[in-house]
């Protein structure tokens, strides 16, 4: 009788195992854990960077260079360094508000409402993207849906769903490098399921124990053109940033 019970239990376990949907191996981290590790790579208390933005439009390519100071999630200040037309233009983000100043007009203009959906300097990134909370785990729930290989690197396939509906992209699909926890490819979707943007990270580098993208391409799939390439020329994490940088007065300085 005991043998019969053990046999029945074994059969039961086998049947249940066979009926379970195929998924990631049991040792795979959960979606939330992966998001946290991505956040650990990308998010810092503060950082100062110099980057170039190569905008590949239908009728030509433009390169814009900028220096950015970022503090936590709420404060960011960017000064455009080149080309001549954009040089000196500054942008300030404090919490949910965004201002811009251009030397030719000497006007501080608050960017709000529908203007937030406009393209940032003609790139494939909008002001709204720029305003988004950089910590993914604050906005999205994540679920591992499988594994795939991107450019020879094994990746977790992650499905992100927004915790609240008032976000620019309701769902995202990430291909996260299993070793470095960098999303090598991202697809961003509207609530209706329409693909809006793609992000491809071409090159990553290690800085202060974290993996960070050096070169990546944003592409607004609703726009013509070959996308906008971001190149991080230099980046310093956790440096001292004077508080006065994040004030409207510094826009005119």
């Amino acid at each position, binding site marked *: 009788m005991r043998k019969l019970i053990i046999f029945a239990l074994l059969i039961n376990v086998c049947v249940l195992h066979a009926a379970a949907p195929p998924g990631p191996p049991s040792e795979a981290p959960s979606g939330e854990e992966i998001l946290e590790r991505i956040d650990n790579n990308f998010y810092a208390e503060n950082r100062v960077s110099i980057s170039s933005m190569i*905008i590949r*439009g*239908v*009728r030509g390519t*433009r390169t814009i260079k900028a220096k950015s100071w970022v503090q936590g999630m709420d404060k960011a200040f960017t000064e455009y360094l080149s080309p001549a*037309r*954009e040089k000196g233009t500054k942008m300030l983000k404090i919490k949910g508000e965004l201002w*811009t100043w*251009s030397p*030719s*007009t*000497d*006007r*501080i*203009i*608050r*960017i709000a409402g529908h*203007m937030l959906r*406009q*393209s*940032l*300097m*003609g*790139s494939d990134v909008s002001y709204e993207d720029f305003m988004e909370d950089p910590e993914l785990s604050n906005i999205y729930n994540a679920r591992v849906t499988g594994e795939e290989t991107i450019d020879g690197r094994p990746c977790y396939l992650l499905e992100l769903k927004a915790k609240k509906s008032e976000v620019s992209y309701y769902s995202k699909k990430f291909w996260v490098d299993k070793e470095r926890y960098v999303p090598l490819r991202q697809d961003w979707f509207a609530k209706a399921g329409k693909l809006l943007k793609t992000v491809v990270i071409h090159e990553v580098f290690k800085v202060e124990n974290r993996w960070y993208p050096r070169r990546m391409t944003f592409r607004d799939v609703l726009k013509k053109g070959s996308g906008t390439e971001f190149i991080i020329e230099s980046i310093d994490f956790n440096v001292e940033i004077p508080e006065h940088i994040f004030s409207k007065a510094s826009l005119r300085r």
Partner: protein
Amino acid sequence: MIKFLLKGLMRDRSRSLFPVLIAGTGAFLTVFLYSWIQGAIGDLIQSSAQFDTGHVKIMTRAYRELSDQIPNDLALLGVESLLEQLRSNEKEMVWTPRTRFGGLLDIPDERGETRAQGPVMGLAADLLNPSSPEIKILNLNNALVRGHLPREKNEILISEEFARRLGVTIGETATLISSTMNGAMAMHNFTVAGTVHFGITSLDKGAIIADISDVQYALDMPDAAGEIVGYSKDMLYDDEAMLELTKKFNDRFSKEDDEFSPVMLSLSQQNGLGEYLGFASALGGIIVVIFVFVMSIVVWNSGLINGIRRYGEIGVRLAMGEPNGSLYRWMIFESIVTGFVGSILGTLVGLGASYYLQFKGIDFGSVLQKSTVLISSVVRARVTGWSYAIGFFPGLIASVVGTIFAGIGIYRRQTSQLFKELEV
């Protein structure tokens, strides 16, 4: 005899006054309605040509596809050289570059912070060049309400209603927030030189007019323009000639495999204006047919009533030996006389009313508050050469046709029965 019959016609009101009144009313309504609709459609076409379509318009093939969205990223490049070619090849036309743009107009306070702001529709035209026809085409001298036309760089005109709403005065700074040709945010300071009233609701709600070189700088569009518009030198639109010009240009310059190659469209090929033009030219015929039909029935009916009333008179004339044909022809002659007199009177009254509305117009501004169509808020009638003649068609034809049907009864009278009928 004729004198006697004419006297009878004059003295018998039912034979003269009522047919004249019927013919006159028909002629009046035809002339008035025709002139009114000609005015309304003419206004729409003229406003569209002035501010939007030109007699012909050149843009890139890609821009044409999305022209409602004003896609300046798809604007024409190398505009100076294209204009040079057009001016040397098509000398009977006037060519001028234009750029339409949208955005926000922001008025600063003394600290440079936003005091007032509103969405704006902009038109960049060649205003500072002394040889440019734009001031005349856009009728800016007449539209000016306050201030002066742009004389210096970065001076703009703003619609009077919009200026009042924003509380902006002449000489103040206004910052345009828009998009560059590359899609980046553009900010540019202008000075308000004057205010204008176009009489077109969609423009008066919020429009600015700036010099094209300033807008080229502001929107990062060097040697570029959204459109090049062309007008015939006499400013009269000739659809056939414009279609021919369009074909000639497109055969030479437009390439199907190059979305940035220029393409020319005539006024009738834009914004469904071809249908309006077709409608306007068919309108005279439509109105005449409707009125001839309706009035023929009315005159036929009144002829039948007349026939009963004049039963005795016709009987006597037949009994005296007047042939049926002669009597029938005489009745038709009578209808020609009454129709002619009625048409003259109706046309005169119709022309009077039309001329009054041509100068006075009716203001539909309050109904067109949300309109985005380039149509004048004051709709006027327009008296054309055809207005003088069109009333005679229903006036004469309807009278004659009505009498032809009503008079058939004459042939049904039996001569043998006449005396018996007359005894009664």
